[in-house]
């Protein structure tokens, strides 16, 4: 593991906000377990728990906490300087941080989604959710990493993206669905394990191509932004 990745991972888990990663996955699996224990039919809870909570909230919010945690926090407290004053290609710094963000997000979201899918019906659904969440984790991570470099309030910008762009607008303006990572995740899940819970406005091809575009474009922009990282003086 590169030194940048090591420091990034230590920083991510060393901060108290890492604890924020726990409640959502626990809630997700907990709800599914409860429904299962009381023999509620998955037809009744599947959509609400898996789609409305798991895919629309848990995955993007986990990605946001991690994605801004690997870079935004260091920018915020100024420790990023110690990494930037090294003769490292800015590309390698971003890639190291991206690798940490994407893999942590994958583990923290795909594992509970897999369990929830299994509880809701089949290992196939579980597997589909895990694969889709992995793709989503990679795309979201690139986006939120970029937000850490274009805004001083990346968490806020990320929440607006999740809640307003993907959440609200997605319901009214159909065009935004083509530009929402959440929709790609749903499309991929539904293609691997067709289920009655999801309506999929985007095709599988769109989902895969667009996820790749989000991932690559986010990373490339982030590399470029990091190259011009500025430290202004203190306003007095």
């Amino acid at each position: 593991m590169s030194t940048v990745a090591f420091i990034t991972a230590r920083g991510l888990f060393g901060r108290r906000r890492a604890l924020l990663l726990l409640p959502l996955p626990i809630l997700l699996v907990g709800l599914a377990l409860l429904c299962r224990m009381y023999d509620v039919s998955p037809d009744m809870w599947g959509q609400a728990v898996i789609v409305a909570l798991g895919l629309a909230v848990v995955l993007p919010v986990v990605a946001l906490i991690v994605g801004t945690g690997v870079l935004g926090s260091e920018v915020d407290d100024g420790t990023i300087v110690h990494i930037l004053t090294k003769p490292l290609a800015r590309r390698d710094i971003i890639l190291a941080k991206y690798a940490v963000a994407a893999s942590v997000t994958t583990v923290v979201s795909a594992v509970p989604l897999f369990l929830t899918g299994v509880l809701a019906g089949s290992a196939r659904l579980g597997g589909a959710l895990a694969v889709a969440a992995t793709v989503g984790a990679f795309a979201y991570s690139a986006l939120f990493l970029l937000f850490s470099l274009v805004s001083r309030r990346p968490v806020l910008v990320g929440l607006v993206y999740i809640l307003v762009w993907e959440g609200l607008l997605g319901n009214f303006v159909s065009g935004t669905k083509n530009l929402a990572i959440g929709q790609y995740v749903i499309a991929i899940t539904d293609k691997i394990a067709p289920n009655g819970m999801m309506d999929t406005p985007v095709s599988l091809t769109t989902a895969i191509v667009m996820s790749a575009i989000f991932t690559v474009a986010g990373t490339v922009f982030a590399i470029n932004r990091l190259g011009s990282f500025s430290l202004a003086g203190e306003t007095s």
Partner: protein
Amino acid sequence: MTAQTLPAETPAATLGVVDLVNVSRWYGNVVAVNDITMSLNPGVTGLLGPNGAGKTTVLHMMAGFLAPSRGMVTIDGKPTWRNPAVYRDLGLVTEREAVHGFLTARQFVTACARMQKLKDPEAAAQRALELVEMTGAAERRIETFSKGMRQRTRVAAALVHEPRVLLLDEPFNGMDPRQRMHMMELLHSLGDRGHTILFSSHILEEVEQVAGLVQVIVAGRLAASGDYRKIRRLMTNRPHVFAVRSSDDRRLAVALMAEKSVAGIEIEATGLTVRASDYGSFTRVLPRIALDQGIRLHQLVPSDESLESVFSYLLEG
């Protein structure tokens, strides 16, 4: 030109020249740095200026963390902006004391050595920690450190690759006198060994003790540049503290004490040291008092070292 006609080609190890050519930087419509041209060579240079003068802005431009709005900033001829390769030869200690507090000092400095791709990061870290006298606390997490210890750890991290150029923004802030003394000695010895060291300060005494060369910036402009003594001579022309000798020092002291423009008086065997709060009115009031009291003034010598007076003097001059 052949090699023989050149004066023995400068070996790489003696480079480390930082050049600013007509550099300006503004934030919106605030001009923070105004057309500065300076050249730093091996040795210790002090960057002196009052709060808000533009010291941090200059240092950050040198360190490649800010694009100049105008002009060129280079180290050994290579631009520093958008050029991470310069960090092989450059160390920066920022004013803001952010560190990865969850690491121990040794982990932190070793990580910096690794990111510099040094051959033996552990040994380099050990050497750097020894230089700043932090080996005793090296296994403690940085978040448990005092301000001065953090500062020294950051210096160790900036030094671990033995950069030819080391930039430090207000490095003595928060250090106790002993730590300060040690840091000054360290900068001194690095300068003597041929490193180019630039440190900023708004305290004249700090600069006096470490740097032979001084760059004074006031309100974004280079107000004076050169040998410390030369600048000091300029400074003593525009003082706030005076050494006064008269026919009756005690009586003069009592009379002066009642004056608004006099902030303090010390009576010594050799005469009075008067601190004037207002330069103009004190110099007007003193002859009048002497006359009123029938005291003859033998000597009135400015002995001020307050930076404010240097700055206002240098600016007017």
